[in-house]
């Protein structure tokens, strides 16, 4: 079992051990003292940690998060990580994301398109430790490869692949295989697992930059 990064812990909520981080609550999630529940059903990265995937983080990492949406997951990441850049393309969720970021001095929200890294390369620093990607667009592997420029060598990638974003009619397994192959351009895949029961038709991939 991989150790959880510092700042993430399993706490008891309603009698079950579930992930939690310390920080200001975001959407009315249950809390246990200073700890707030990190719901794996609402967060693909949460599901990947809950499934004990091989994610070696120790806490305090610098992070680029692509597809931050309204900031549910990225708020937990910012609770245990260092400087965290959150990129989201849709304006409506960004309104909420900015609210989440206001209370977290290490979280930097950006209204940018993850498919166009040049539009935020003047803001996001290089040699980051950790890249998280959860974008529902076609060409998810391409996005991960294009954004590898922000990662340090051996930097870690956690990628949630949504089969239906690539092709609604294709067999999810075939889509996942295509993504794993396309990642080879920039990454070495360490672990990959389906995210059921937390998320249907999603694959979690852990990889390091080579």
């Amino acid at each position, binding site marked *: 079992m991989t150790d959880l990064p510092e700042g993430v812990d399993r706490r008891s909520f309603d009698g079950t051990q579930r992930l939690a981080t310390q920080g200001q609550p975001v959407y009315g999630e249950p809390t246990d003292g200073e700890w707030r529940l990190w719901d794996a059903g609402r967060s693909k990265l949460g599901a990947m940690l809950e499934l004990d995937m091989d994610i070696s983080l120790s806490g305090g990492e610098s992070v680029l998060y692509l597809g931050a949406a309204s900031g549910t997951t990225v708020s937990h990441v910012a609770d245990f990580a260092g*400087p965290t850049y959150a990129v989201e393309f849709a*304006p*409506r969720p*960004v*309104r909420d*994301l*900015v609210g989440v*970021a*206001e209370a977290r*001095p*290490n*979280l*930097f*929200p*950006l*209204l940018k398109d993850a498919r166009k890294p*040049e*539009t935020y*390369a*003047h*803001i*996001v*620093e*290089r*040699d980051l430790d950790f890249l998280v990607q959860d974008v529902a667009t076609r060409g998810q592997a391409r996005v991960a490869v294009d954004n590898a*420029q*922000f990662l340090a060598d051996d930097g870690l990638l956690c990628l949630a692949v949504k089969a239906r974003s690539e092709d*609604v*009619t294709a067999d999810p397994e075939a889509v996942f295989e295509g993504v794993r192959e396309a990642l080879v351009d920039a990454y070495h895949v360490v672990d990959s697992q389906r995210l059921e029961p937390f998320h249907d038709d999603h694959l979690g991939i852990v990889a390091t930059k080579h």
Partner: protein
Amino acid sequence: MTDDTDAAAAGWFAGLDAVDTEAASRTIREASAAEPADWPRLAVEAGFVDSEADYYNQLHKATIHSTRAAARAREQADDKQLLHAVRAMDDATRTANELAERLSEWAGTLFDDQPTGIEGARRLADREPKSPLEARVISLADRVDGLATEADELGTFIERQAPDIAPNLSEMAGPVLAARLIALAGGLESLAKKPSGTVQVLGAEDALFAHLAGRGSSPKHGIIYTHEYVSGTRPEDRGSAARAFAGKLSIAARIDHYSGKFKPEIHDELDERMSTIRARAGAASEGAEQ
């Protein structure tokens, strides 16, 4: 270190004063760089900030300010307002109808010959209550009346706004259907970028995905069915009509998004195409008579 000076020139903080959040906000939104660099270190070396901790403070202030402004600007783009208006209109209509049903169930126990629907609610709202119970029912009728009126006014608003935002699309489809198409596509730009085959079945996603999964035939039309060009054409020719209509609608959306000028030619072309398609029905019935 000239290399680093050059490199720093590509950063969001280049040439800025640390206190000028407005200017920083603009470069964050508009500038770009070929590749990332060690911005915190470069910013300290360039004298923009005293320490990396200070750098992150400035970055936090600037990104919050910039991103909030950028999101607000994008959300206020006119086609997005139209999208909210049409969704609000549909919600108001649906809710008014649901409440009107509840109301006629209830009012039927109190009054004889109570008419149903929105009209019934409006008539009921004018009555004078004679008991606390009647007062509740009549007050509810008043809300239904208010909601239905709001839906009508939203419709009027859409009819006035849509031609400004999408002149060709509104002329061709009518303002309300134009607004619905924009809402279904998620904006005028996304509608302009969709192939006409997608425009043809917008609003028929359930049927389309059932078809793609191997159940059922492919839908011939989505929301565009509400237009007379499609619904008024005989069933055998509806596929052709929907295809022709959707094709011209995507062209109209593209003109509206990329140029914004009214172009009468495309409307004439569509009219001509529609009469050709409808002439088939005439030809078929003449053939049957002979």
